[in-house]
Structures are given as structure tokens and as C-alpha cells.
């Protein structure tokens, strides 16, 4: 029962954070474009493509995490996204870039990188927990269908 609750709370957290990030980015694409570009990891044109695609990936992941048929893919995607965000943040801190995170659009313009790093690490732990749970659930389903077929 406690585990079931932990899974629901984890899904809600990931879903909420990703939806919030996606909507904030979609509401100000030019800011998102500049924020991505400022990481100096992508050209101006590539940053524009990322700024257009990333919010939708976040939104689809946030919704997919609730749909049983695709939730393992969604939790995997959420983990990959968090690893990418963490890597970008660590690289920006290492290069001493004086930039803002941009994780939550223009409203995030005052946020420091270090607190976002902690937040992303926390999200990574939750995403990994969800992968474990979703994989176990799908594994059980696959076993069940294999047994029924036999």
C-alpha cells in the first residue's frame, strides 16, 4: 500500500514538474531559445530546434507517465531528460558560465544553477524509481501473457 502511494506521488511529482517546465517554455519560445543557446552547447539554429521540440517531449512524457501501455517508455524518457539537464547544468557550472537555468522559461530567469542541480538530481532518483516499478509491472504482464499463451 505504501509502495503504491509512493509510486503515485512519484508520478505526480514528475508529471507536475515536466508539465510546468513544458508550459513555461512553450509560452516564451524566444526566451527558451536564448536560454538554451547560452549554454554554448548548440549552435543558434540547433538551439532553436531544441527549443521547439523539448517542451513537447516534456509534455508528452508528463502525460505518458500515467498511461499504462507507455509508462515504461515515459519513465525512461524522463530519466534520459533529467540526465541531459544535469549534464548541461554541470557543464555550465564547470565552465563558470554566468547564465540562468532557463528550465522553467522566463520566470526562471533569476534562478541559480546550483539549486536546479539539486532539484534535477532529486528528479533523477524519482525517475529511476519509476523505471524500476514500471519495468517490474510490465515484466509481470509479459510473464502472465506468456503463461496464458502456453
Amino acid at each position: 500500500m505504501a509502495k503504491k502511494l509512493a509510486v503515485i506521488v512519484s508520478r505526480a511529482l514528475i508529471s507536475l514538474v515536466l508539465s510546468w517546465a513544458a508550459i513555461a517554455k512553450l509560452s516564451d519560445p524566444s526566451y527558451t531559445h536564448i536560454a538554451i543557446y547560452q549554454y554554448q552547447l548548440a549552435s543558434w539554429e540547433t538551439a532553436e530546434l531544441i527549443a521547439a521540440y523539448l517542451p513537447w517531449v516534456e509534455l508528452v512524457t508528463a502525460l505518458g507517465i500515467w498511461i499504462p501501455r507507455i509508462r515504461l517508455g515515459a519513465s525512461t524518457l524522463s530519466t534520459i531528460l533529467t540526465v541531459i539537464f544535469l549534464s548541461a547544468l554541470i557543464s555550465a557550472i564547470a565552465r563558470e558560465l554566468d547564465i540562468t537555468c532557463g528550465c522553467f522559461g522566463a520566470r526562471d530567469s533569476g534562478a541559480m544553477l546550483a539549486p536546479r542541480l539539486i532539484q534535477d538530481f532529486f528528479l533523477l532518483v524519482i525517475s529511476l524509481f519509476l523505471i524500476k516499478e514500471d519495468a517490474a509491472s510490465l515484466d509481470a504482464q509479459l510473464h502472465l501473457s506468456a503463461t496464458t499463451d502456453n
Partner: protein
Amino acid sequence: MNTFTEQIAPKAPLIRAGLTQMVILLLLAGIPTWLTSHFQIRWKAPATVESLTISSLKQDSRNVIWIDVRGQEAFDIAHIDGALRFDENDHDTSLQTLLKEWTPNKRVVVYGVGTGSERAERVALRLKKDLQSKKVYLLEGGWASWPRN
């Protein structure tokens, strides 16, 4: 090696399912991305920067900071008197230089090579946001329209 294969093999359907689901999600995200890009759909109107003509600026040239976004070479050859060169690729350093001269009552006029300079527009939009000021403008016609002596 065998042990590794033996451990992974039973998980193969699970890994395949996870990857397939992930690809489906990525493709699904591609649909709205393509639609919004193709039809230029915006959640809100894109911010714009007003253009000022040379004649209007010459009538009242007080409190104007000129921002030149052309390349260093072009800037070195000639530029508007007192203009600051703004390197888009080194935004922070250029912004810091600008902030030494800028006060909220001053107008910032950005110019590029000529009419429709995308770089000038990008810099102006960014400065409007950075400075939280409405007094950021583009020079109509850019450097090409500036009278030479």
C-alpha cells in the same frame, strides 16, 4: 560474457518494449513540434521591437545609446559616433559594457548591416528583456541608411 548474455537475454522483451514506447513518445512529440513550427503557431504574440527613423533620432539624439551588432571588422572601419559594439556571441560581456552607460531614461537603438538584420532584431529583443525596458529600438535601415560624410 556468457553470464552477462544470460542475465540480459530474459530482459530483452522488456528492453524492447521500453525502447519502443520511448520512440512512440518521441514521435508523438514531433507532431505538435512540426505543426507549431510549420504554421507558426505561438502561444502568445511574438515580442516585437519598434523601429526608429534616422530623422526622428536626429531631432532628439539626447539620451541615445547606439548598439552596433555588425562584426568587429565592419565596426572598426566605421560606425556611428559613440556606438558600442555588441557581440551577440559574448552577450554577457557586451551587456556589462552597455550597463556602464545605460540608465532607464536612455533609449537604446540597435543597428545591423541594413534593413531586416536578424541579428539586430535578436539582440534588441534580448536587450528589451534583459533591461526590462521598453526603450529599446531598431534603427530603420540599419547602418546602410546612416548618412556618410
